[in-house]
């Protein structure tokens, strides 16, 4: 059992809500059925505040703050939906689409994709930025899995699950900014990455079709993520 924590009272979208003082705004919102869009966040992994989709408005702070990486404070007044937030979130999704080659209709995760789901939920009908159409490779050297850089949104869920849960740390990021790429080991083909245990956790946590099981055809790749919070919980139990 966790040590008893101080209870904090805050407002989210005008609702009075009580929370533990060590919780993030995102955790509290989810517990209270308040939806905040997320992409890099995944229950069971550490939060890094990278995708910026969970940005919220906090009264008294001019800058928007990521709900996944901001702890609640007494008397905090949070707004999770506004025209300003909608615009930011839509722009983020549109930029993700423009940056690589996301072709839903022929993608293995069509219908099971977090990026696609959010685009629809946020009402995105057009991408208002010019597409970059980068020429990116597919790494199919692994016996069971493949990496399609065209569909990677650099959320680093694969990096975190591999490091934090599997303990292999096969995945990492090379380069910076728009040149960033996920890599296996020291940028070797995945099939030659000795640290990889072929557990498939990275494939299942990947929000898009960037990581997928070989042999799957269009729309056949549904990700199984139920294992992650369960695994984390069981490990916490064991270490007590």
């Amino acid at each position: 059992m966790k040590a008893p924590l101080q209870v904090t009272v805050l407002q989210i979208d005008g609702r009075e809500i009580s929370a533990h003082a060590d919780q993030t705004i995102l955790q509290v919102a989810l517990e209270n059925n308040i939806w905040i869009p997320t992409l890099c966040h995944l229950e069971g992994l550490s939060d890094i505040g990278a995708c910026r989709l969970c940005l919220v408005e906090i009264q008294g702070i001019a800058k928007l703050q990521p709900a996944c990486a901001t702890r609640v404070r007494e008397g905090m007044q949070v707004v999770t939906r506004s025209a300003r937030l909608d615009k930011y979130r839509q722009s983020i999704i549109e930029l993700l689409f423009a940056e690589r080659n996301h072709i839903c209709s022929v993608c293995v995760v069509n219908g099971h994709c977090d990026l696609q789901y959010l685009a629809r939920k946020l009402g995105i009908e057009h991408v208002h930025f010019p597409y970059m159409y980068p020429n990116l490779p597919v790494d199919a050297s692994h016996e069971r899995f493949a990496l399609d850089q065209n569909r990677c949104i650099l959320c680093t869920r694969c990096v975190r699950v591999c490091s934090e849960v599997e303990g292999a740390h096969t995945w990492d990021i090379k380069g910076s900014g728009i040149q960033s790429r996920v890599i296996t080991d020291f940028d070797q083909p995945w099939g030659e990455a000795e640290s990889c245990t072929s557990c498939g956790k990275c494939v299942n946590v990947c929000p898009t079709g960037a990581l997928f099981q070989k042999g799957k055809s269009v729309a056949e790749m549904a990700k199984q993520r139920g294992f992650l919070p369960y695994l984390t919980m069981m490990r916490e139990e064991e270490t007590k």
Partner: protein
Amino acid sequence: MGKTILIDPVTRIEGHSKITIQLDERGAVADARFHVTQMRGFEKLVQGRPFHEMPSLMARICGICPVSHLMASAKACDALLAVQIPDAADKLRRIMNLAQIVQSHALSFFYLSAPDLLLGMDADPARRNIVGLLQEKPELARDGIRLRQFGQQTIELLGGRRIHPGWVVPGGVNEPLDAAKRDEILQALPETLALAERTLQWFKPLVENYRKEIRAFANFPSLFVGLVGAQDNLSFYDGALRVMDARGKIIADKIQAEDYAQYIGEAVEPDSYLKSAYYKPFGYPQGIYRVGPLARLNIVSTCETPRANREWAEFRELQRGPVLSSFHYHYARLVEILYALERMELLLADPAILSRHVRAYAAPNNYEGVGMSEAPRGTLIHHYKIDANGLMEWANLIIATGHNNLAMNQGVLQTAQHFVHGERLTDGALNRVEAVIRAYDPCLSCSTHAFGQMPLQVQLVNVKGELLDEKMRG
């Protein structure tokens, strides 16, 4: 002074094209060319993609024939896996392919060509369309709409959607058929069979009215190419290629998919994005051949199914030896609709069609695979090469319309020689030149991008290359 007539764009076909008619010094038609004016680039853009994506990527070539591309692509992928797909999967694919034949032939015959046939080649273009057909002969138009709907609904019942279903996968299909869906298809078959027969009975006497067109509509000797089943029967899904000459002699037979390149060459002309396929042993451009409904009915010895077989025998009575006029593509389409419906009924009657075992799994075992099937417009060949990881390295596609390219040029020339006189383009000449193209039902979507209504462009050019007359319709 030599002149050129240009028909651009050509209407009521799938895609965008134009026609150039070249006149000689005396003002007589010297040459005619059919140009496809836009490129797609599918063979290039698939490079580097996992081959399991190929059926769905290839289906995007065309919104009319996605199923045909699915079939040829899935068969090429089966060859890469080196598997024999389960029997039920094989039959299910066949049913979907037949449904595709029905819907596409119905589109071609009723929506695109029947207005010419019923309202006359010289009728006002504003009326010469499906709406005009509905006013003139509503029951015929309704039959056509119903037949197309049936084909599309069957595709949807099997694959979950009408256009670009993701159901056909390397190794089989990804979902078995359930009894309720089977019964729904079976229940609609007696009605649609009756519609197909009614249309044939209406059309056959009409053929007499088009003697002039039959004589001049791409009526020339050529080779005929298509798939033939093991019993010398009509087949859309499997079988081997047969090449027949204009006298009905089989000059090459039992050509397996992987050997196609020994027999079929492809030439590229600077004035069109459509490749010209030719029969290699005869060289280019002498190796001119036709594919599609006319060719298929010419090369087989039976249709197998009783009603279609009767109609096929009558069709073959049109001429001693192979039927040569491309005008008869229309007639052949109706016979094939009847066959497809009968065949679907037989396949669905087999209880094994409901088997849950519909997919074979394997890693790629071949680095090269060829898939061949019959699309509504003719033989379709997909040829893929992959690397050791299953990523596409190279693709070659030969589309039915490409096989027919040389024959279409020949047909346009022949028709222009009959109907184009002087330095001006008459509507009647324009209509017939356009209609001869339509007889082949070219699917340019397979090599071009189609948007909105397809307009018509014909140019008349003299020997010096100067534009004399140009007609646009759209």
